[in-house]
């Protein structure tokens, strides 16, 4: 938490990259974090299983918005096959900080939207926590 606001999260929050709409997106998915009202809509352009373009709109806290912006930036050119394997770790690597059990939901919102939007996976993305 300490380096929370030292990371470039505030920068992405204030100046979100890939904010806005795509023309004729292949996938549009809206998702919310109901505990706090974070909302995002992601839009993807897919060609041959590769993310050709991506954008988002939304509002919410710095974590959810920066996380979404960073992800939209990072997934460009990546294959859906690769993205399907993404989990908590990949998002936290993007954000570059540790996140506690409550706000992890904000950070993982774009991943949740991606998985639900592309593969219809409704299951919780932090299930990998579930190694017993």
């Amino acid at each position, binding site marked *: 938490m300490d380096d929370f*606001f030292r990371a470039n999260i505030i920068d992405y929050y204030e100046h979100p990259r890939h904010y806005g709409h795509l023309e004729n997106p292949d996938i549009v998915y809206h998702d919310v974090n109901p505990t706090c009202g974070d909302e995002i809509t992601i839009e993807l352009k897919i060609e041959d299983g590769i993310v050709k373009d991506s954008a988002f709109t939304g509002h*919410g*806290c710095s974590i*959810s918005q920066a996380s979404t912006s960073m992800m939209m930036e990072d997934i460009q050119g990546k294959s859906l096959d690769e993205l399907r394997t993404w989990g908590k770790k990949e998002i936290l690597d993007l954000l570059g900080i540790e996140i506690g059990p409550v706000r992890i939901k904000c950070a993982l919102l774009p991943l949740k939207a991606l998985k639900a939007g592309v593969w219809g996976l409704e299951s919780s993305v932090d299930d990998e926590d579930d190694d017993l």
Partner: protein
Amino acid sequence: MDRKQVNTVTPIDVEAVRRDFPVLERKIHGVPLVYLDNAATSQKPAAVIEAMNRFYRQENSNVHRGIHALSEESTADYEAARKKLAKFIHAKSRREIVFTRNATESINLVAYSWGLDNLHPGDEVLITEMEHHANIVPWQQICRRTGATLRYVPITPQGYLDLSTLDNLLTEKTKLFAFTAMSNVFGTIPPVKMLVEKAHAVGALTLVDGAQAVSHMPVDVRALDCDFLAFSAHKMCGPTGIGALYGKAALLNKMSPFLTGGDMILSVWMDHATWNEIPHKFEAGTPAIAEAIGFGAAVDYLNSIGGMEAIHHYEQEMITAAMTALQDIEGLRMIGPPPADRGGLVSFVMDGLHPHDIAAVLDQDGIAVRAGYHCAQPLHDRLNIHATTRASFYFYNLPSEIDLLVQSLQRAQKLFGR
């Protein structure tokens, strides 16, 4: 609720009281804890923690059935706790206190037990737009199951109930009016006694959500004449895992049981069963024994430091000071009524700062507040706000903690370049 003049109460010795709470010695990120999340749950004095310790270390046993010393001691202490609670809210009898897990379960108990049997298509349940989800969703569900209709008393932009609508909304169709005695978002304290009277005038029962009020001000169920009152131990210095439902004995006697199993029965045959007397009829299985004892100890503690009148008085001072101080922060907007009409909590929004981020910055300074919908999404929707930040006080908070809050909010503004 009718608040009396409080000039004569002995003031709470806050410095002394703080020493009763072990957690207040905690350091958060290296700085002392400033706990302003009391509306979510209160801290626990050593006396409450120790009462439960003593139970587990010296007399732990199951209740009501055992013919041995530990069981008799446990039973006596469990029932003594019930009596303390009955007295605390001025019930007529300890039999009118049912132990539940929390205020939420108390409301669900009434919804299932009274609601399933007594609501029919055409009937109406009336709640308000300032309810906590605990006093909304159970009524949505039970109306769905029974065909009854759920209606809402609207709120004004100032955070009051719009009482002008009452005469239209409370009709012969209204079977139950369920409303909070203190909003956990606005802090608003509605005129409970008058609302109960109006409901009774059309023949409706009343359920008062006392989750906030019982913890923060005197509540007298006989003076209010409400039919049900729901509240939780954990918000009033007691343990987690236990709450209470007050119900008028005549009503509880008539109601079907809710959870069934051991202890709530009189006799069980293969094809049917008969019920124990109240309140046991509503307490199935091994109860939260240690927690009941802790709940009783919490009531003792609240009485010992001066009582609810004194606590309410102190919180009025604190909320007045807090709202005065917050007013000076540019771009900060508080929601809800002026201090005189509310309990000791205040929710606010700040230009360009998301409540989550505010809470995160405050946390770095050791200050615990809550950010979000506070389990009152319809209220936020009505006001067109996404989420708010809430600072909520209890009798152990210091005026100096208000200054720390203000400083930290200003730091958040700087950090986010506002």
